[in-house]
């Protein structure tokens, strides 16, 4: 049975040493796969205080148990590392085919440490793993580098993770690209790769993936796909994909506009889903996915798979751009240079507001999209104003001011949802282990588009904690965000691909365990309650339009909700998981001990 190989490929770039290690079966029981397993692998004999850009930092690529099987949308690959953008744990993931490819190559995970003495790429297939020279593709954009590397390897079916110029230049919000338009966007993983002198990771696999009973597996998976209407042609993720969210967010008044000064965009009709459908030529799916959310679009000047909602929000309304074709340009530039579209849009929006308010002249104002596109290129090479922008919103605001509208949490720029239109999202942003991201929980669905009052913190602590646990289980066990799956079904899929008994309770507890594991990583890295905050703008200013109009989200209410959240999670008043909680969750003793030493150290420091 090799939906789990039990194999970790360990690559030491400094000493050019490659070896295979066993992954304990117990880790699958506790943390399943992908980001859960990857987090556990990262934390083995690792100091969370490690400098993220030092050779000592690790990049752990982890695939899910279900990857490579016929379960829909199950082949995302996660990279777990310490983030140079936030200093927290980072657990971004990328779609496409590469997660399955790693499984077919005979590994569940790859851990990369050290720093190569010259620009290199890593090649992995079932027979060999090699560190090879990447001099030929140095400084090359991701599109051309991907094609060139395929030609160098002499195999057009190889799947590649490629770093762009931004990552080579250590931009803290640089992303890693795969198959041209699939990005591991958040947390600055491109910079970690860059710091290791690693330009690419090329993977090719051809091994069988077996499950306990393949006939039963096929039958049950087929039934589940039908029950959950995964392949339905009227699934909005198929008909529209994420651009459908533009109208939802606009109607809910949480569509970030002009650096989150407003929650509605007057020109939203120019950048809504229909505009992109008009220029769409094809639909595209990731490996084994029956949904196919991807949209391949063509404009006069560019082609892209995208843009996704976040890119539309951050490269559109948030910078005052109402030209959908220029959003495509923004998307293409970011992908090719290896920049996270969310953070890139966020930092440009902040600079625009700073300039308009006269606090500091960055030479760019809202709506000046051509200048913004030029700035994107400059960020990647850290030239001119791009060198400033490459610091990110947090560092820029510490240098030049405007902190109350520096729209970031723990150094990560926020994605396309204003939390004043969905207060639960505020708690989620503040407590997400990797900072201001939308993947930790998505209460918007239940608040802004559901039956729960968006404009109160009542009951939100519990709601967000539960949603986070579910989300962490879902990603770790292996299903993409766009399958609204319940814990029972998820457990059933895990049973038929891995084995054992996975009840809904066990699935939810797995999610909670992984969430806590990442929390203790962050605490050991020096984080505390003090960083579980939101930008001041959200507490001091009200939105002027849409459902959140004139409703203030007071800071004291938020702080109280946060206390409730900690209590519900079984954490102390400073937001630290208690030893009892960690033991109840079954987290291993040696991790609890290491954590306890940090907590005791913090307490002593306080007494002094």
């Amino acid at each position, binding site marked *: 049975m090799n939906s789990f190989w039990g194999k970790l490929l360990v690559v030491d770039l400094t000493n050019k040493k490659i070896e295979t290690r066993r992954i304990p079966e117990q880790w699958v029981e506790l943390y399943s796969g992908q980001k859960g397993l990857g987090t556990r692998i990262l934390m083995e004999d690792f100091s969370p205080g490690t400098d993220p850009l030092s050779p000592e930092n690790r990049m752990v690529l982890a695939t899910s148990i279900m990857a*490579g*099987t*016929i379960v*829909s949308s199950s082949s995302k690959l996660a990279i777990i590392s310490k983030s140079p953008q936030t200093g927290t744990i980072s657990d971004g993931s990328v779609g496409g*085919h590469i997660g399955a490819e790693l499984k*077919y190559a005979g590994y569940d995970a790859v851990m990369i440490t050290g720093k190569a003495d010259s620009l290199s790429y890593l090649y992995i297939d079932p027979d060999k793993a090699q560190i090879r020279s990447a001099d030929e593709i140095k400084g090359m954009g991701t*599109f051309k580098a991907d*094609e060139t590397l395929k030609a160098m390897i002499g195999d*057009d*079916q190889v799947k590649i993770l490629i770093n762009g110029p931004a990552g080579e230049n250590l931009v803290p919000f640089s992303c890693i690209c795969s*198959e*041209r*338009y699939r990005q591991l966007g958040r947390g600055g993983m491109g910079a970690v790769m860059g710091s290791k002198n690693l330009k690419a990771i090329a993977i090719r696999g*051809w*091994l*069988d*993936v*077996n*499950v306990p009973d*393949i006939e039963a*597996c*096929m039958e049950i998976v*087929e039934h589940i796909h039908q029950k959950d209407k*995964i*392949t339905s*042609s009227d699934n909005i993720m198929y008909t529209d994909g994420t651009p459908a969210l533009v109208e939802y967010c606009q109607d809910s008044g949480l569509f970030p506009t002009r650096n989150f000064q407003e929650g509605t965009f007057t020109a939203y009709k120019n950048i809504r889903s229909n505009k992109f459908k008009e220029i769409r*030529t*094809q*639909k*595209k*799916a*990731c*490996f*084994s*996915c*029956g*949904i*196919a959310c*991807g949209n*391949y679009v*063509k404009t006069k000047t560019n*082609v892209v*798979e995208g843009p996704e909602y976040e890119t539309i929000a951050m490269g559109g309304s948030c910078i005052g751009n109402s030209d959908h074709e220029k959003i495509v340009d923004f998307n293409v530039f970011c992908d090719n240079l290896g920049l996270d579209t969310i953070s890139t849009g966020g930092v440009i929006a902040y600079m625009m507001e700073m300039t308009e308010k006269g606090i500091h002249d960055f030479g760019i104002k809202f709506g000046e999209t051509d200048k913004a596109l030029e700035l994107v290129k400059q960020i990647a090479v850290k030239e001119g104003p791009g060198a400033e922008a490459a610091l990110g919103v947090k560092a820029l605001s510490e240098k030049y001011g405007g902190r109350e509208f520096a729209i970031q949490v723990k150094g990560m720029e926020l994605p396309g949802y204003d939390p004043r239109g969905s207060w639960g999202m505020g708690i989620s942003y503040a407590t997400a282990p990797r900072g201001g991201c939308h993947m930790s929980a998505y209460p918007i669905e239940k608040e802004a588009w559901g039956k729960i009052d968006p404009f109160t913190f009542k009951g939100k602590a519990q709601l967000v904690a539960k949603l986070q646990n579910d989300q962490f289980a879902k990603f770790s066990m292996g299903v993409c965000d766009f399958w609204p799956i319940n814990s029972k079904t998820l457990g059933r899929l895990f049973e038929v691909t891995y084995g054992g008994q996975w009840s809904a309770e066990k699935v939810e507890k797995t999610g909670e365990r992984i969430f806590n594991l990442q929390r203790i990583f962050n605490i050991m890295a020096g984080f505390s309650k003090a960083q579980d905050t939101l930008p001041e703008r959200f507490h001091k200013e009200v939105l002027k339009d849409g459902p959140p109009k004139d409703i203030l989200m007071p800071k004291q209410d938020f702080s109280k909700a946060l206390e409730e959240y900690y209590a519900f999670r079984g954490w102390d008043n400073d937001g630290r998981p208690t030893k009892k909680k960690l033991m109840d969750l079954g987290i291993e003793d040696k991790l609890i001990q290491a954590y306890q030493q940090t907590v005791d150290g913090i307490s002593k420091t306080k007494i002094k």
Partner: protein
Amino acid sequence: MPLMFKKSLCTGCKLCQLACSATHEKAFNPEKARIKITHEYREDGIHVTSKHCTFCKKCEAACPEGAISNNGVNMIVDRDKCIGCATCVETCPTQIIFIDVNHKSVICDLCGGLPKCVQWCPKGAISLFIKKKAVA
């Protein structure tokens, strides 16, 4: 009665290949499927290709052992007669035939009537082409 493939409907998910290898080889392995789709981005846009048995019967004519026949609908490999010489592999114009671990030729048999690739394709990109018989 070959399979029909409609490029414009394909999303490149490879569920067809997974269903094929699971059914015939009892493992998930797109490399061991009897239909192979590529769906990739290149410099000039999206490229979609499909390799699957077109029922051209050239393998049958070429087989030195007489191990390949057809039933009017699909090809049939007699695994007792097959010696794994790969003449069929070399002859196949679509290059979809391969030799398995037991050194036997592997050719699409349409799953005996209801092909799993057709059944699993989420977007209806694969179908069975049924030729109407001329009525005398």
